[in-house]
C-alpha cells in the first residue's frame, strides 16, 4: 500500500475557557490517499472545521492540539515550529474557506494577492509569477484572466471570488487541499460548478482533497470516501457508496435517511430526534446515546472505539470485532 498523503491519528483538540476545558476533537483518525477525495460530514459543531484547521496548524489559542499525530506524506506536521508550519501552509496544503466574500483582502487587487502567494512559496520573478497567476485564473475558469487579474475582490461575484480563492489555494501545487464548506455561502446554481472544479483539480494534479461539508448531496456526488463526524469523533468512515447505501452507525443511518431522493418519493424523510450535545455537556459513553434508537446500557458508560466492518469502520457497540465474537 502506498503512503497516504495525509494521515491523522488519535487527534485531540481542546479549548480552554474560563469555566471549563472543552474537547472539540476527541480521538479522530483517518487517512487520505493521493488523488482521493475524502468527505467529512456532520452537523455544525461536530468538529469538521476544527479538524481541517488542526491539520493546517491554524488552531489559535485558547484552542490547542493536545494529543495525536498528523503526518503529511510521512512527515509529522503537528507541533512544527511556527515558521516551518507556515512554509507547509499554502505550499503543501492549500485551504479554501467557507465565505469567498470575506476570504479576500478587499484592499488588494486579486492579482497582487495571487502573486504574493506564489512568490512566498517559489523563486519566481514578479513577471513570471504574474504569468502564472493569469494561467491559474484561466484554470479555475475566470474569463479574460489577463484583464480580471487587476480587479479588486468587490468587482467579482461570489462564485467568481470562490474561484479566485481556489486559485490561491492551488497556486503552489499543494499535495492536499482542505476545502471547508466551500459552497455553503454560494448560490445553489454555482455550487455544482465549484464542486466540479475542485474535483477536476484534484484529479488533474493528483491532489488529495479533504472536503468538509454538511451537504450529503455534495458528498455523494464528489467524494471517494466519507467520514461522518459526531460530537468531535468519527462515527463512521468508509467508501462513499457503502456509507450512503448501507450506513452502519445509527447516526449515519439517520443522516442518510435525511437525504431526499427523487426515486423514493413515497418514503417519509427520517429525522433524528433531538440535537447534538453542546461541547460543555457531552454525555459519557457514546455521545450519540441520548438520541439513539438502539441505545443499550453499555452505550451510556463505555465509549465505543472504531471497529472495522468490511471497508467501513464504525464506532458503535452494536458491532463487534469479528475475532471477539468467536472467543
Amino acid at each position, binding site marked *: 500500500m502506498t503512503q497516504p498523503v495525509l494521515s491523522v491519528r488519535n487527534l485531540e483538540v481542546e479549548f480552554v475557557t474560563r469555566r471549563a476545558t472543552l*474537547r472539540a476533537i476527541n480521538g479522530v483518525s483517518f487517512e487520505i490517499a493521493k488523488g482521493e477525495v475524502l468527505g467529512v460530514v456532520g452537523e455544525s459543531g461536530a468538529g469538521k472545521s476544527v479538524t481541517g484547521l488542526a491539520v493546517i496548524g491554524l488552531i489559535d489559542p485558547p484552542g490547542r492540539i493536545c494529543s495525536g499525530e498528523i503526518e503529511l506524506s510521512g512527515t509529522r506536521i503537528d507541533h512544527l515550529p511556527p515558521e516551518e508550519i507556515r512554509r507547509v501552509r499554502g505550499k503543501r496544503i492549500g485551504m479554501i474557506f467557507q465565505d469567498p466574500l470575506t476570504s479576500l483582502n478587499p484592499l488588494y487587487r486579486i492579482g497582487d494577492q495571487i502573486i504574493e502567494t506564489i512568490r512566498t512559496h517559489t523563486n519566481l520573478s514578479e513577471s513570471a509569477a504574474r504569468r502564472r497567476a493569469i494561467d491559474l485564473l484561466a484554470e479555475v475558469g475566470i474569463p479574460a484572466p489577463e484583464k480580471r487579474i487587476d480587479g479588486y475582490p468587490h468587482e467579482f461575484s461570489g462564485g467568481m471570488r470562490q474561484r479566485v480563492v481556489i486559485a490561491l489555494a492551488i497556486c503552489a501545487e499543494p499535495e492536499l487541499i482542505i476545502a471547508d464548506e466551500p459552497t455553503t455561502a454560494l448560490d445553489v446554481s454555482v455550487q455544482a460548478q465549484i464542486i466540479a472544479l475542485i474535483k477536476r483539480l484534484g484529479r488533474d494534479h493528483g491532489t488529495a482533497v479533504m472536503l468538509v461539508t454538511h451537504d450529503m448531496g455534495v458528498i455523494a456526488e464528489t467524494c471517494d470516501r466519507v467520514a461522518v463526524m459526531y460530537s468531535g469523533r468519527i462515527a463512521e468512515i468508509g467508501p462513499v457508496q457503502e456509507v450512503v447505501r448501507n450506513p452502519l452507525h445509527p447516526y449515519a443511518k439517520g443522516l442518510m435517511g435525511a437525504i431526499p431522493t427523487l426515486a423514493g418519493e413515497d418514503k417519509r424523510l427520517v429525522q433524528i430526534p433531538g440535537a447534538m450535545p453542546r461541547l*460543555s*455537556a*457531552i454525555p*459519557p*459513553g457514546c455521545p450519540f446515546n441520548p438520541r439513539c434508537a438502539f441505545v443499550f446500557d453499555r452505550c451510556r458508560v463505555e*465509549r465505543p*472505539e472504531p471497529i472495522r466492518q468490511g471497508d467501513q469502520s464504525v464506532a458503535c457497540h452494536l458491532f463487534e470485532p469479528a475475532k471477539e465474537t468467536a472467543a
Partner: protein
Amino acid sequence: MSDAVVPHRSEGHQAPAGWFRRALDSDIFYSFRRSRLTMVAAAITLLFFLLAIFASWLAVQNPFDPAQLQLINSRIAPLWTADGQSPFLLGTDEQGRDVLSAILYGLRISLAVGIAGVVFAGALGIALGLVAGYFGGVVDSVIMRIADVQLTFPAILIALLVNGVAKSLLGNRLDEMSTLGVLVIAIGLSFWVQYARTVRGSVMVEKNKDYVAAAQLIGLPAPKIMFRHVLPNTMGPILVIATINLALAIITEATLSFLGAGMPDTMPSLGTLIRIGNNYLFAGEWWIVAFPGIALAGLILSINLLGDWLRDALNPKLR
C-alpha cells in the same frame, strides 16, 4: 476505553438562586473582582466623593471665607518640608489659604458642576432622543442634523462659546452661583449628543415591537409608553456614557476654569486652583499647583477606569 472526564449533564438545571447570588455569579461582578485596578479605582472614586461631601468637617478652614484667611500664613510650604507649619498639611497659597482645604472645597465644586452637567446633558439628550426616535420625520432629522454638526466640534469650544455669550448677556450680574449655573448649562449643551443618539437608536428598534403597538392600542399615551417601556432598555449604555462623560465634564469644567472662563478666584474649583497655582510655579512654590493637579488627575483617572471597566463588562465583544 471509557471517558475519564464526566462533565455535568447540564449546568442550567440547578435550583434558582436569589438575585444576590446571581449578581455575585454574573460576568459583571466576575470582571469587577478579577480587575484589581478597577476595585482600587472604585475605592478612590468613593473616597473623593466622601471628601467632597464632608469637606466642611474635614478642612481646617473655609477657604471661601476671606475672614478666615490671614496673609501672615501665605506661601507656607507643605508640612514635611523644612518650612512647613501646622496645621497646613499641604502648605498655603499667596492669600494664606490652606491648600488642602481649598482642594476639599474645590473638589466639591468640581464634582457638583460635573454631576449637574452630566445630569443636565443626560436629561436633554434623553428627551431629544426620545422625541426624535418616537416622532421621526422632520423632527428627527432636524434634531439629528444638529447633533451631527455639533459632534464635529470639540465640547470645549462649545462650552467656551456658551460661556462667552452668557458673560456678554449677563455682564456684571454674574456672581459665583450663576457662574456655576452657566458652567452646568455649557457642559450640558456640549455633551447631550451621545445620549440622544443612543436613546433614539433604541427607540427606533423598540417602537416597532408588538408590545408598543399593543400599548398604543389600549390607549396608553405616548410619553407613558416611552418612559415605562422604552427607556429602561437603554439604561445600560446610558450609564456607561454618563460615567465616561462625568470624567469629561470634570475635565471641561477644570479647563474652562483654568482658561479663566469658569469659576472665579473667590469660589475656586480644582481648575481655578491650578490656574492660580500655575503663576507661582516659576517662583518655586510648586505645591500650590501640584496638589490640586494631583487631586484632579486622580479623580479623573479613577472615574475613567470605572467607565472603561463598565463599558467592557456590559459589552463583552470589545474585550
